[in-house]
């Protein structure tokens, strides 16, 4: 890459969100800010290689994007009104290129942008896409890939979300202190949704989608940079780091998913595991945290038990069962009850696990798959056969169905 290309991708990577935040802060037109900045980046790609990289690349982009945005406002005929408003309102940030000389000054605007993108009046999926696009500058094509939709569908979703912000009057503000904890929880939910999207089963393992989950980690790190120590975000970051640390071991050379117990643990990112442990150690205990933070923390503790076991056989299953008991107390869900039953089976054997399955109601194939595996281990072949068949019928994902069919064949060979 040329020097100009490198300088441009660096400033876009580091300052995209701040540049968008500055534009929105000044003109209150989130629907125009993104296009204006994209135009400015395009202009930079064209002119910097010839004319040289400007001394302050971010300021150059800011000035150019502002010009583009003003052109759009002029052509809309709202220019005069905007000028009147700008002269009567006190803008949150003094305009001008000198602002960009010291980007940290824009942190408040960046937090306003985060809060606007992750507003509870937006659907979570739309908020997640919008946050990745506006706060981090992830391309629409990459966001579409992450969420397994076509690029035009994702572009339309992002446009709709921006229109709703403008039409419904979602403000560009840091919420009042009473509302802030709830709003940070929405940010956490948005971040986790974007993260899990990369791990959701698609047509097959897609390493790029997994890498894109890392952008959700960057989003939460960005917000934590603005609100250091927020427990709900710290716990979430620890959870995401632990899950993400296994990314390279999840898929084998043939592209098949590798179960946790069979993964090559030397391929886990141990630096990320250590970092997650430090984050966990800095948090209060679950009893002292609000529900969502506590639930994220317990899930991080469970992930830590797996991450810190030298081999699958060394996993401290009784401790994991106790963590699931805590999780079910804080945030009861059939999925957590099912995961607890699996842990119980590992700790106390398949019969105890089957007993723990009693009373769980869950649509989809997962409950029956777990039951089938436990019945196989208990050598109750006829019941296992029935459970496998029910699980296969209920499974709507090709990769997981072929896995179940393989397991059924293996079970029949043993029976």
């Amino acid at each position, binding site marked *: 890459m040329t020097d100009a290309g490198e300088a441009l991708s660096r400033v876009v990577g580091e300052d995209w969100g701040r540049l968008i935040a500055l534009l929105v802060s000044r003109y209150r037109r989130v629907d125009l800010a993104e296009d204006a900045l994209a135009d400015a980046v395009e202009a930079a790609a064209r002119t910097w290689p010839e004319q040289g990289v400007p001394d302050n690349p971010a300021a150059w982009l800011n000035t150019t994007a502002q010009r583009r945005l003003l052109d759009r406002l002029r052509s*809309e005929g709202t220019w005069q*009104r*905007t000028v009147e408003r700008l002269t009567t309102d006190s803008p949150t940030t003094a305009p001008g290129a000198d602002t960009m000389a010291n980007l940290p000054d824009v942190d408040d605007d960046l937090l306003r942008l985060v809060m606007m993108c992750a507003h509870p009046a937006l659907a979570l999926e739309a908020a997640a896409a919008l946050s990745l696009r506006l706060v981090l500058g992830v391309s629409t094509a990459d966001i579409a890939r992450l969420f397994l939709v076509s690029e035009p569908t994702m572009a339309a979703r992002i446009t709709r979300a921006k229109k709703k912000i*403008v*039409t419904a*009057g979602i*403000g560009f*503000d840091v919420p009042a202190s009473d*509302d802030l904890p709830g709003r940070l929880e929405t940010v956490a939910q948005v971040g986790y949704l974007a993260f899990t999207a990369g791990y959701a089963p698609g047509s097959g393992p897609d390493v790029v989608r997994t890498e894109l989950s890392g952008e959700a980690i960057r989003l939460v790190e960005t917000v934590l940079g603005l609100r250091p120590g927020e427990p709900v975000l710290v716990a979430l970051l620890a959870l995401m780091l632990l899950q993400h640390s296994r990314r390279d071991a999840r898929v084998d050379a043939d592209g098949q998913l590798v179960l946790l117990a069979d993964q090559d643990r030397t391929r886990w990112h141990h630096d990320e595991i250590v970092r997650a442990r430090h984050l966990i150690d800095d948090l209060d205990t679950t009893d002292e945290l609000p529900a969502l933070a506590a639930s994220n923390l317990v899930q991080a503790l469970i992930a830590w038990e797996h991450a810190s076991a030298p081999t699958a056989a060394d996993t401290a299953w009784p401790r994991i069962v106790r963590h699931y008991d805590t999780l079910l107390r804080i945030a009861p869900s059939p999925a957590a009850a099912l995961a607890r039953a699996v842990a119980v089976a590992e700790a106390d054997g398949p019969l105890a696990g089957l007993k723990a399955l009693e009373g769980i109601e869950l649509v989809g194939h997962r409950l029956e798959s777990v039951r089938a595996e436990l019945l196989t281990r208990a050598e109750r072949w006829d019941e296992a056969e029935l459970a496998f068949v029910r699980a296969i019928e209920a499974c709507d994902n090709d990769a997981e169905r072929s896995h179940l069919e393989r397991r059924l064949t293996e079970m029949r060979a043993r029976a």
Partner: protein
Amino acid sequence: MKRYLFLIAATPVDWTSFTPEQQAEFMTQHAQFENHLTTHGRLVSTAPLAGAEAATTIRHRDDQLVVSDGPFAETAEVISGYYDAELPDLDSAIAAAALLPHGYAVEIRPAIPTPTPDDQVPEDQAQA
């Protein structure tokens, strides 16, 4: 300022079945809501509405006017009243609606500013 219509959906109840305390609480909650509106913006108009049995819905189907008895959707909750108000932003509108009696579902709909002869350029387009 943006203009919002608060559509209140509630299960029809017999007001006389409320205890005096319940009636007082209900009135207080509406008063707190209206107080939020006047503190942070402006109440344009409001009214309770007659029940869904008095509703008439019109639609056009194949270019023919179809007038039918009843509300848009048959659900347990019906639109039972509205507030039309100006407030700074959606967060303020949500904060106001949260003050209303908790049995309500409140749909907040931004009004689209339309130009009047005195005001050729809609103000909110510049502000949005």
